[in-house]
């Protein structure tokens, strides 16, 4: 009955689709919501026949995939929307040179956003690079579109973007699977300098070719089965772009209303003929799309060309908000206000509940690093701590409030440098994680060393890209498939750049770590402290059996609250006039015992 039907997340469905398409290379840099695409490619293929890797950053991931494509091998590259900012330089040129083996990019947008610093709309990247963009509306389409995207990529010799949101990536759907294809393996790079050597003399020709491809793809999309106009004998129509189609259908069901619905899944280039069909059956058209009013703008242009008399409604007319992720309620509200209907959702009150603030995990080495850093910094007249992207930016929440700014991957050193360059007198510290350091912190450090900047860089090294699920990075020692690979030694790297003050410290040994940080802060010039300790979520799984009997308890607490206010480990709590340690949460790192000014936290053997 359920032959070949499985329950899969969107990310799993995409990974399966990639193997059904016979990919030979898969690359990625971790980022919510698409981190699980590459992971599942490794799981499903058992790393046989597919070369899968977590690349050092998104630009590298795309370039490796593009190289494979030049050699005629199908390649899949996944990253979050912000990662594509990093890789955009490459993408815009790859679009010009064109591809050979199919090249498909899975890009995860975050419209809310729930785990990103901005809500960039990837369709703009697709428009900018003149690359076709597909948007599946459910798990089955997510899988099928990967196969379609490879066909499309090879037919028109262009990279293809599949844009998804967390709603597809993390939701579970019933998906009918196909057979995995043996990867096409006869790699050969056929030289074609007019195409691959992208220089001004041939760029004009390549630009012209790309424009022609775009026109052809638009016509192809209009005739394709990707888009569907569902006529419901109504005068009111809705253009539903990508996943928004589901909200439109749910809203119409709840309201019991009729509307013609255009399910638009080819969101760049938007096929003009398809839009023409919609215009010809409609009086007014509501456009529902995640993030920017792109389809709405395009529809308005086509409508004007055709002398359309009705109204185009959507984000530009403020019927739908431009901020945050859509849902059925928002769409129902817009439909009601346009059709003069009472909105059944307007009376519903959302319960006011306290927001659960995420905190660094119990035993997190980053907490100890922050504790030491701020202990030293508090003695200065003033300071600025610039953070970066990773787990450690959770330390920005109270009570730690450990960082004063946090921008994008690898930006901490550059921003810190900028403060110093501007003449800010207070001590500047840049805090950066290991994966972020490899991603783009190294170039920033080179820039700072070259220009002799007086600042301190704290590298919080916990061996993994932890925030997104412990993917390996160049400092980890194994690759996406768990195979042993070379380790890049941060110490040797930093010293080789000419950094005069480098100290390595264990954040679990507070005194030694404090000494290293103090020396760095006092040093005139660029100083680097390398805090190294494995992520607590990994290390707690490897607790030594003989250590299982150890526990930390509080005895003689004077309730000075130092540990609660400045260290704030989630395992510490106050009950009945004393600080207590939750044995369930405690991972026995023993740092709180070093934090307590009255030695009231004691290491005990269970046998006692």
């Amino acid at each position, binding site marked *: 009955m*359920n032959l070949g039907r499985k*329950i899969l997340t969107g990310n799993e469905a995409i990974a399966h689709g990639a193997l059904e398409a016979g990919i030979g290379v898969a690359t990625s840099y971790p980022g919510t919501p698409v981190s699980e695409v590459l992971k599942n490619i490794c799981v499903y293929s058992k790393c046989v026949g597919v070369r899968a890797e977590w690349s050092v950053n998104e630009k590298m991931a795309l370039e490796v995939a593009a190289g494979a494509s030049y050699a005629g091998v199908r390649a899949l590259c996944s990253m979050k929307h912000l990662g594509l900012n990093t890789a955009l330089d490459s993408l815009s040129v790859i679009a010009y040179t064109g591809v050979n083996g199919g090249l498909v990019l899975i890009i995860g947008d975050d419209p809310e956003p*729930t*785990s990103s610093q901005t809500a960039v709309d990837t369709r703009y990247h697709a428009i900018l690079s003149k690359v076709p963009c597909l948007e599946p509306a459910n798990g089955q389409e997510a899988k099928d579109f990967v196969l379609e995207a490879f066909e499309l990529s090879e037919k028109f010799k262009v990279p293809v973007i599949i844009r998804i949101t967390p*709603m597809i990536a*993390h939701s579970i759907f*019933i998906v009918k699977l196909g057979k995995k294809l043996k990867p096409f393996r006869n790699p050969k790079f056929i030289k074609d300098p007019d195409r691959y050597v992208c220089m001004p003399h041939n760029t004009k020709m390549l630009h012209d070719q790309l424009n022609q491809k775009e026109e052809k793809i638009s016509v192809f999309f209009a005739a394709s089965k990707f888009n569907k106009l569902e006529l419901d004998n109504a005068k009111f129509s809705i253009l539903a772009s990508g996943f928004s189609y589901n909200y439109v259908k749910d809203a119409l069901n709840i309201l019991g209303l009729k509307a013609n619905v255009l399910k638009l899944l080819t969101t760049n280039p938007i096929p003009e003929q398809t839009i023409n069909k919609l215009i010809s059956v409609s009086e007014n058209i509501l456009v529902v799309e995640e993030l920017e009013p792109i389809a709405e703008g395009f529809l308005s242009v086509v409508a004007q060309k055709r002398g359309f008399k009705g109204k185009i409604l959507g984000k530009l007319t403020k019927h739908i908000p431009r901020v945050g992720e859509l849902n059925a309620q928002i769409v129902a509200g817009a439909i009601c206000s346009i059709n003069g209907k009472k909105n059944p*959702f307007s009376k519903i*009150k959302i319960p006011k509940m306290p927001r659960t603030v995420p905190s660094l995990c119990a035993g997190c080495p980053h907490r100890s690093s922050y504790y030491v850093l701020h202990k030293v910094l508090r003695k200065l007249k003033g300071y600025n701590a610039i953070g970066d992207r990773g787990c450690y930016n959770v330390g920005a929440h109270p009570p730690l409030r450990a960082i004063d700014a946090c921008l994008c991957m690898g930006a901490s050193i550059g921003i810190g440098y900028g403060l110093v360059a501007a003449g800010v007198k207070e001590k500047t510290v840049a805090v950066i994680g290991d994966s972020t350091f490899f991603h783009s912190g190294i170039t920033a450090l080179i820039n700072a060393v070259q220009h002799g900047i007086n600042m301190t860089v704290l590298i919080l090294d916990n061996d993994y890209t932890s925030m997104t699920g412990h993917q390996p990075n160049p400092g980890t020692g194994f690759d996406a498939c768990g195979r042993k690979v070379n380790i890049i030694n941060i110490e040797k790297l930093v010293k080789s750049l000419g950094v005069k003050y480098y100290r390595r410290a264990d954040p679990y040994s507070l005194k030694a770590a404090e000494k290293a940080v103090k020396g760095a802060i006092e040093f005139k010039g660029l100083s680097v402290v390398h805090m190294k300790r494995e992520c607590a979520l990994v290390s707690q799984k490897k607790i030594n059996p003989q250590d299982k009997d150890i526990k930390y308890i509080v005895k003689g607490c004077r309730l000075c609250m130092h540990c609660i206010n400045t260290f704030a480990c989630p395992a510490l709590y106050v009950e009945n006039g004393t600080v207590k340690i939750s044995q369930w949460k405690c991972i026995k790192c023993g740092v709180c015992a070093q934090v307590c000014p009255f030695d009231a936290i004691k290491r005990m053997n269970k046998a006692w």
Partner: protein
Amino acid sequence: MDYNIIISGLGGDGVIFLSKVITSAALNQGVEVKCYQNHGHAKRGGSVVAHIRIGKNSFSPMIPFATADLLFSFEINEGARYLHFLKDEAMVVVHHDRGADSAQIAHLKSSINNLSIIDLTDIIKSIDDPNTRNSAMLGFIITLDRFPLKSSICKDALLMVLPKEKRGINDAAFELGRRAKRQKI
């Protein structure tokens, strides 16, 4: 008629685990199903919620407001957070142990008609494994009126995803939860 379920709790409660079990039970029973999961900061103490939509008339995996038939939660506050998703006649099951906030219980009682407050820890006290809590919860909710999935299919789906050595105690917890319905809670 479609059936919409919301499961909520904190990281580690087993929300994601149970949503997977119920979704595979639906697949095995041959009905359409989709499930939305929000677990952004689960490991870092955040709240976790899953939406399950059973039936062929639902489109988005996310349940629209005022359309959920059942909400079950492992924590009083995490249950109260999602009341706006419920239909008027929806069933609500909340796990409550001694530490829970009584003001929140009073609030829940005043705003929900079909509320069951159960103490899962008490139900499974004969089993020396707190992790079997969610199996007991599953055993309890399958006995609710209008719950669309068959008890045996749910139990099979539960046991299938567990390692062999854990099946026995979870089967027992499931049965304890199932029988708890008949006792007055």
